[in-house]
């Protein structure tokens, strides 16, 4: 036997084995024998013919076998059919049973190897179309990346447990005066004691109040923000020491030494994590304080503090006023529930205690102010402010994912349609739809998973930026990381996307017995797929529309704010805080002379045009807590007594030197500003801003009217209730940031009410004069801290940073979606053109105007854009309302924005249609016809 016939024999045996195993019969079955004989004859005929044409017998055999296909290929084709009628498996039942057993034992490994085959096929497919694979991975990667990053925020800020021991039992209590519109009026110590003793749901109630201290003993005089806490603070919060110890109940009371515990963050920032920091002694507001430990990292709430000190570190906290005055509210309260208590039970108890207190101490709870106590789980409290931003980001990310998925789905649909013929044949040869579906699933799964990896990398790269952004809204921003839960979400998105892509396309169905059905099925599948493609593009355009509108609204907000100077001379005003220790070394008279000297000496410096002292820096965010109380003080207008029970009007209380207005660029509208003649012993005067004058004196001159400060907080400030004459009205400044409304402000002259806070310098060269100013101040008092040095322009820029970030983030995502949508439009139209090559070619051959062909395609693009715009318009009317809280001076239905976005999208869609349109007009009719 020669090699050629050995090859033929081997093939025959292989095919026999495959078929016998397939049909479940012996290989000697007559039906199999018949097939083998036919095949053998076929091969011999082929070889004979090839030899006639001049091939060697070896070559001819090889060629014949390759043309015939492998034994398993042929068997596969049979597998798709029922066994031919001439093979009757029932005649061989025992053999079949044996086969079945064998098959079952091999089943698992066969399934696995089937998966391997599918994976191999999928990889080969992707490598064959690298452009497709790349587009798939990049688009989906971006979508998954955006969502993974945003989810890491949701997880970090919202979902994951608090970094406190059994943090779910922690409650934050807030005391509000709703009718006076004060969100947080804080608690007084007697109130806290009442809640502590009368609410059995609380295992512990702890007190926290923040205060600024001047700290000496570090490299230079500094200011620190300290949380003054009761000894049970760390125990109630469930927070331990990283090194050293935390503050304990033994640190309460008067006879103990002042101690400080550093926050982990301050320890890192100020001491570089040096364990030697513990044990050091520093001077805080003139008192020696020993640093006894470093706390575990914890969210900075209710505000960012550098360290914690015990009560004795602040003499005020042990004073009679603090301990016994029910009105002296300056403390925040956290509580830990007992293991059996619920937030609800605590709420009920607190409500009933509050009701009793309101009855027992009517003088402390003016009904006109509407006092109430609310309880929130600490976890919800931390996330509360971040909510609108996070929801917006979630929405944006979801839209980006939607458009990315639509794009990939379109790619996949086009792929499936291109392979429609191949698959229709496979189906007609009996391949099960399930098999095709599985292959499609794996083909989508692999790039989806690669996309997920890319997305995770993108998210990991962007998460720090995002955390810095969220830090403005949530104390837990430092806990935002890409962790396993986040990875799980990325993986889930990839799997969901892959399933979507695999199950979205309609596969050619099983061919019915009727002839011609195959064609009809394919045509209708193709039609459905084209319709689906267009629908997806419409969705993409709609999503882009929504995102662009959102970005446009946020951008307009930003531009509105950026063009707002807040009513002050932004560029030329340098500000710095020069905090004064009011409990410390100077009497009010000494303080007045100290600050006056400071202003005089700074004004005399070269490059300084003028200088002033003021109690508050404008364009900064609204003050909180105690400062909110100072900011809004009750007053009464002479001749307009407030009715009993009704709230007094309120105005912001400021103290400024005479040069303040001129230095900040605030102009005089009426009357005069302060003068040297306004002395402590002369008539009491005030200046009001325009907003106040317009509101309270709409029909007469404000100048000449008299107002008197009222309310129970005055006695803490040493301010009398005497009437003061309004001598001037000045222009409005946006004290709380350009995005905030102008408050009603009353300015008191520094000479009549010594209160410092900040130094303002008018100069053309802020950078040049900064150092000389600090030197001058330090010469006056080496222990004077000078902090937060910035021009008003920088402060404004900082105050609108969130809006800038909003606009940038949403804008970036919107551009991304726009690009994806443009690619989607171009892709679908190009695909349509390639599918209609013959039709278009015939039309060109029949003399159709090429311009007409271009217009046909452009019209399709315009139609897609139109539907997308309508969808987008509807969606944006639904969704932009949700971000109305983030807008400023722009309505969510801003016609200008909607119009510009509509035009932009239409232009992009037409531009994207231009390429396929051009191709359509350049189809060579001859080529097109030959192709069919």
């Amino acid at each position, binding site marked *: 036997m020669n090699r050629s016939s050995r090859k033929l024999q081997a093939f025959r045996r292989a095919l026999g084995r495959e078929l016998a195993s397939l049909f479940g019969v012996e290989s000697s079955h007559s039906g199999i024998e018949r097939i083998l004989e036919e095949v053998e004859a076929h091969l011999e005929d082929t070889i004979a013919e090839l030899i006639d044409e001049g091939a060697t017998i070896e070559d001819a055999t090889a060629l014949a076998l390759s043309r*015939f296909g492998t034994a398993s290929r042929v068997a596969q084709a*049979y597998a798709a059919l029922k066994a031919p*009628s001439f093979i009757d498996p029932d005649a061989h039942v025992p053999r079949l049973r044996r086969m079945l057993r064998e098959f079952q034992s091999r089943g698992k490994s066969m399934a696995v190897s089937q998966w391997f085959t599918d994976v191999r096929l999928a990889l080969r497919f992707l490598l064959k179309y690298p452009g497709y694979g790349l587009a798939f991975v990049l688009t989906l990667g971006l979508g998954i990346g955006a969502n993974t990053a945003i989810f890491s925020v949701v997880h970090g800020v919202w979902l994951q447990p608090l970094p406190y021991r059994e943090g779910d039992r922690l409650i934050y209590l807030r005391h509000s005066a709703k009718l006076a519109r004060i969100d947080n009026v804080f608690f007084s110590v007697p109130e806290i004691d009442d809640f502590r003793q009368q609410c059995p749901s609380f295992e512990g109630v702890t007190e926290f109040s923040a205060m600024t201290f001047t700290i000496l003993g570090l490299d230079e005089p500094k200011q620190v923000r300290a949380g003054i806490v009761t000894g049970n603070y760390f125990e109630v919060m469930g927070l331990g020491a990283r090194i050293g110890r935390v503050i304990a109940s033994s640190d309460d009371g008067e006879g103990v030494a002042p101690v400080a515990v550093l926050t982990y963050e301050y320890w890192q920032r100020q001491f570089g994590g040096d364990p030697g920091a513990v044990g050091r002694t520093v001077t805080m507001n003139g008192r020696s304080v020993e640093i006894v430990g470093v706390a575990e990292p914890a969210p900075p709430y209710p505000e960012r503090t550098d360290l914690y000190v015990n009560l004795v570190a602040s003499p005020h906290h042990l004073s009679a006023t603090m301990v016994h005055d029910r009105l002296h509210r300056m403390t925040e309260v956290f509580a830990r529930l007992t293991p059996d208590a619920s937030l609800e039970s605590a709420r009920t108890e607190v409500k009933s205690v509050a009701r009793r207190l309101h009855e027992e101490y009517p003088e402390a709870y003016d009904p006109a102010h509407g006092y109430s106590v609310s309880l929130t789980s600490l976890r919800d409290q931390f996330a509360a402010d971040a909510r609108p931003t996070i929801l917006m980001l979630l929405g944006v990310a979801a839209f980006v994912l939607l458009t990315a998925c639509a794009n990939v789905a379109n790619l996949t649909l086009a792929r499936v349609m291109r392979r429609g013929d191949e698959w229709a044949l496979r189906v007609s040869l009996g391949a099960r739809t399930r098999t095709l579906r599985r292959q499609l699933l794996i083909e989508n799964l692999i790039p989806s998973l690669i996309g997920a990896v890319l997305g995770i990398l993108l998210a990991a790269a962007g998460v720090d930026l995002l955390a810095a952004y969220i830090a403005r809204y949530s104390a837990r921003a430092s806990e935002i990381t890409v962790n396993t839960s986040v990875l799980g979400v990325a993986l889930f998105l990839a799997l969901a996307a892959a399933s979507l892509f695999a199950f979205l396309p309609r596969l050619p169905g099983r061919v019915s017995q009727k002839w*011609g059905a195959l*064609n009809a099925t394919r045509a209708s599948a193709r039609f459905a797929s084209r319709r689906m493609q267009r629908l997806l593009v419409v969705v993409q355009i709609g999503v882009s529309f929504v995102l662009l509108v959102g970005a446009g609204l946020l951008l307009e907000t930003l531009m509105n704010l950026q063009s707002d100077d807040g009513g002050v001379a932004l560029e030329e005003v340098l500000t710095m805080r020069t905090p004064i220790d009011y409990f410390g070394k100077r009497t009010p008279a000494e303080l007045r002379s100290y600050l006056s000297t400071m202003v005089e000496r700074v004004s005399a410096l070269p490059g300084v045009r003028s200088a002033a002292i003021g109690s508050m820096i404008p364009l900064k965010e609204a003050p909180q807590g105690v400062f909110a109380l100072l900011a809004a003080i009750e007053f009464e207008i002479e001749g307009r007594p407030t009715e009993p029970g009704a709230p007094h009007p309120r105005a912001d209380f400021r103290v400024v030197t005479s040069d303040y207005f001129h230095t900040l660029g605030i102009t005089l509208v009426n009357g005069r500003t302060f003068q040297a003649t306004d002395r402590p012993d002369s008539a009491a005067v005030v200046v009001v801003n325009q907003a106040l004058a317009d509101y309270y004196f709409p029909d007469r001159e404000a100048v000449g009217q008299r107002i008197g400060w009222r309310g129970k907080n005055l006695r803490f400030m040493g301010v009398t209730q005497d009437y003061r004459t309004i001598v001037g009205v000045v222009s409005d400044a946006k004290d709380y940031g350009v995005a905030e409304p102008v408050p009603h402000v009353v300015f008191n002259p520094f000479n009549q009410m010594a209160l410092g806070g900040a130094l303002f310098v008018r100069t053309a060269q802020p950078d040049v004069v900064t150092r000389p100013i600090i030197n001058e101040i330090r010469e006056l008092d080496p222990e004077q801290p000078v902090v937060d040095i910035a021009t008003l322009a920088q402060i404004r820029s900082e105050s609108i940073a969130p809006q800038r970030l909003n606009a940038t983030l949403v804008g970036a995502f919107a551009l991304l979606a726009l690009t994806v949508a443009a690619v989607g439009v171009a892709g679908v139209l190009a695909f349509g053109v390639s599918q209609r090559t013959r039709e278009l070619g015939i039309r060109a051959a*029949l003399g159709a105007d090429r311009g007409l062909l271009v217009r046909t395609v452009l019209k399709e693009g315009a139609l897609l854009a139109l539907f997308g715009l309508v969808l987008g318009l509807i969606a944006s009317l639904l969704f932009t309302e949700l971000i109305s809280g983030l807008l400023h001076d722009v309505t969510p239905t801003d016609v200008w924005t909607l119009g510009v976005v509509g035009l932009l999208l239409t232009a992009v869609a037409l531009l994207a249609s231009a390429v396929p349109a051009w191709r359509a007009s350049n189809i060579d009719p001859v080529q097109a016809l030959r192709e*069919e």
Partner: protein
Amino acid sequence: MKRERLKGHLDLLLLAVVSAGAAHGYRIARRLADASGGALELPEGTLYPALHRLESKKLLKSSWDTVGGRRRRVYDLTQEGKEALTQERTEWGSFAKAVESVLDTA
């Protein structure tokens, strides 16, 4: 015609090719290849499953015959096969005509 498209009509084509006269597998393959101008290049081995299926569906019948000195299975149309082919041809023709007339007027 595109190869893929031809494949989709494999059953119809086989019936058509056999209708030209009873033939064995190899001859059917050759006729198919010649008629399609070499465009149909599916593995020849897959021809037999298709033939055997048509036979099972009683559209073709087969019997042993000796051709060129060798025993071969020769296929021919059954009555049902002829009817199916006629019907399919008519449908195809009217379909093609409809398409042509649409294209001509377009």
